[in-house]
């Protein structure tokens, strides 16, 4: 970011002559606005459309395919519809809190994008406490959800809000603890710093660095799903139990804002996981052209992050929902102890294991990871064969 600002205020730049102290915030704000309106909002919308399509295919259905090519514009239609709908505030609700809650939720989620990298030079603010900052601002979402649950003056909403508060606060701990192995390995909290400590090749990723980081990756992803209120941890809105949980009384745009957060947050999860464990935007240095390199880095990072969005959709289509007490059991009896063991294990690993042995372990773990993928597809083939499908039942194209 700094290089970008410097190049802009240099002679011949767009902002030539402007002092650095003024130019830097301006560029940040400008880039932030581009990120929010040009990236965050569309990505949340498109994710909603894609989620419905992915679900539909898993469920032997077609899914929304009428608005635009393959229903691609469905999210715009839904957004417009919700914008035009009446904004109902129940008479018994606490007007101020009720109106404020969705904005708080969205603010907490959008603020995370300040520290999320897109490519080597593309990040709004490469904070030296980047990952800590992200963990902190997502906490604002809880306040919004709890506020929504309370202000609705509805028992189902209240239950949803309380569940959400308990859930998000609990899962901050395993999420935070599973970041530590990576932080220990890199010695920095900066998002760019963590990415720079990894390489482009899978064996250079922290995912395959040692068994502890491998486990930490799953712990972090599960905890992040729980923080994002995603299945199997979607108990705050648990449709079949709490009607719609904390957003039962919401309608129109305010209702949509909650879902903007939910879908947008998926990308945030993906981005953090990619940064911490999957080498972020790292690509081989194949060209000198900075623009091309940045674009490729952006593409690589986006694809990696979006794979986790897809994974979250896929998990949602597969798993049932846990119960409140089981959620807590999973967190406190399983994830927190394992996360602590992980942290200590990584520290010991760093001291005990020599570099050459570490290299061997990395390669072995990469091979094991590939083996798991192969095993997975063998199971897929098994299920396809067991279902005794006719040739007409197979259909590989996503287009219907």
């Amino acid at each position, binding site marked *: 970011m700094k290089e970008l600002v410097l190049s802009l205020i240099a002679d011949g730049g767009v902002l030539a002559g402007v002092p650095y102290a003024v130019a830097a915030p301006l560029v940040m704000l400008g880039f932030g606005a581009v990120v929010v309106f040009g990236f965050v909002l569309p990505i949340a919308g498109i994710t909603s459309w894609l989620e419905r399509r992915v679900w539909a295919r898993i469920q032997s259905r077609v899914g929304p395919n009428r608005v635009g090519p393959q229903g691609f514009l469905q999210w715009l239609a839904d957004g417009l519809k919700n914008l035009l709908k009446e904004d109902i505030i129940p008479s018994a609700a606490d007007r101020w809190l009720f109106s404020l809650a969705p904005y708080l939720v969205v603010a907490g989620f959008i603020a995370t994008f300040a520290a999320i990298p897109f490519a080597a030079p593309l990040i709004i603010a490469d904070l030296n406490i980047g990952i800590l900052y992200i963990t902190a601002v997502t906490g604002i979402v809880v306040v919004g959800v709890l506020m929504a649950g309370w202000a609705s003056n509805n028992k189902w909403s209240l239950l949803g809000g309380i569940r959400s508060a308990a859930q998000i606060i609990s899962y901050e701990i395993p999420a935070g603890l599973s970041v530590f192995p990576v932080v220990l390995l890199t010695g920095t909290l900066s998002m760019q710093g963590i990415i720079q400590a990894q390489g482009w090749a899978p064996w250079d990723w922290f995912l395959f660095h040692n068994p502890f980081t491998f486990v930490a990756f799953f712990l972090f992803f599960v905890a992040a799903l729980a923080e994002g209120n995603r299945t199997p941890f979607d108990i705050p809105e648990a449709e079949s139990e709490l009607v719609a949980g904390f957003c039962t009384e919401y309608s129109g745009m305010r209702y949509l804002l909650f879902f903007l957060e939910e879908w947008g947050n998926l990308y945030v999860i993906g981005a953090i996981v990619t940064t911490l464990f999957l080498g972020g935007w790292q690509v081989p240095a194949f060209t000198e052209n900075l623009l091309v390199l940045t674009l490729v880095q952006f593409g690589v990072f986006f694809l990696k992050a979006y794979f986790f969005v897809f994974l979250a959709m896929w998990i949602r289509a597969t798993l049932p929902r846990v119960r409140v007490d089981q959620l807590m059991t999973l967190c406190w009896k399983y994830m927190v102890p394992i996360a602590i063991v992980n942290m200590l294990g990584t520290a010991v690993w760093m001291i005990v294991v020599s570099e050459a042995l570490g290299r061997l372990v990395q390669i072995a773990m990469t091979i094991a990871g590939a083996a798991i993928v192969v095993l997975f597809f063998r199971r897929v083939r098994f*299920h396809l064969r067991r*279902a005794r499908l006719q040739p*007409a*039942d197979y259909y590989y194209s996503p287009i219907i």
Partner: protein
Amino acid sequence: MAGYLGNIKETVTSIFEGMSVTFSHFVRRPYTVQYPDRIPIPIQDTLPFRYRGILEVDLEICTGCLACERACPIDCIVIEAVKDKQTKAMVLNRFDIDIAKCMYCGLCSEPCPTGSIHHTSQFEGADYSLESMLRRFVKAPVVAYKPKKGPETDPVVGPLLDRGLRYLDDFAKPGGASEASEPDEAGAT
């Protein structure tokens, strides 16, 4: 401890298994159709012969015997048939079916001697008013059909009667297909 690790193992393997099932559905064809406009042939044409859709009456072969009116458990059929004093023929003044009330049970078409009242494969009955759900089949009084001794020769009635009898043949007959249905002892009420 074994239970603790066992739980983790079972969770991981069962989720792995479930995810492989859902993934295998990505290469299977969706089973739903895009009703009503993106289907190769109209749904109505794919329905079986016995499908019980909206009722229809072929007045040309209605004998005015009132068997359907009596069989209807919900009283959604109203027929007015009077005997013309001069010609000794039954004249149908009214044959109304309230489709809004009809429960598509098929009990009316079973006792029909000619298959005049029968279910079609039409099912799209939504409309804006209750009145439009009332089907008035008799526009002007018509003479009821009188079964002939020999085969039907009339070019209009013949095919209708053939279709009607074929429709009737599909119903189970008491004591087997060869025996005719019992004569109705009650007569006109």
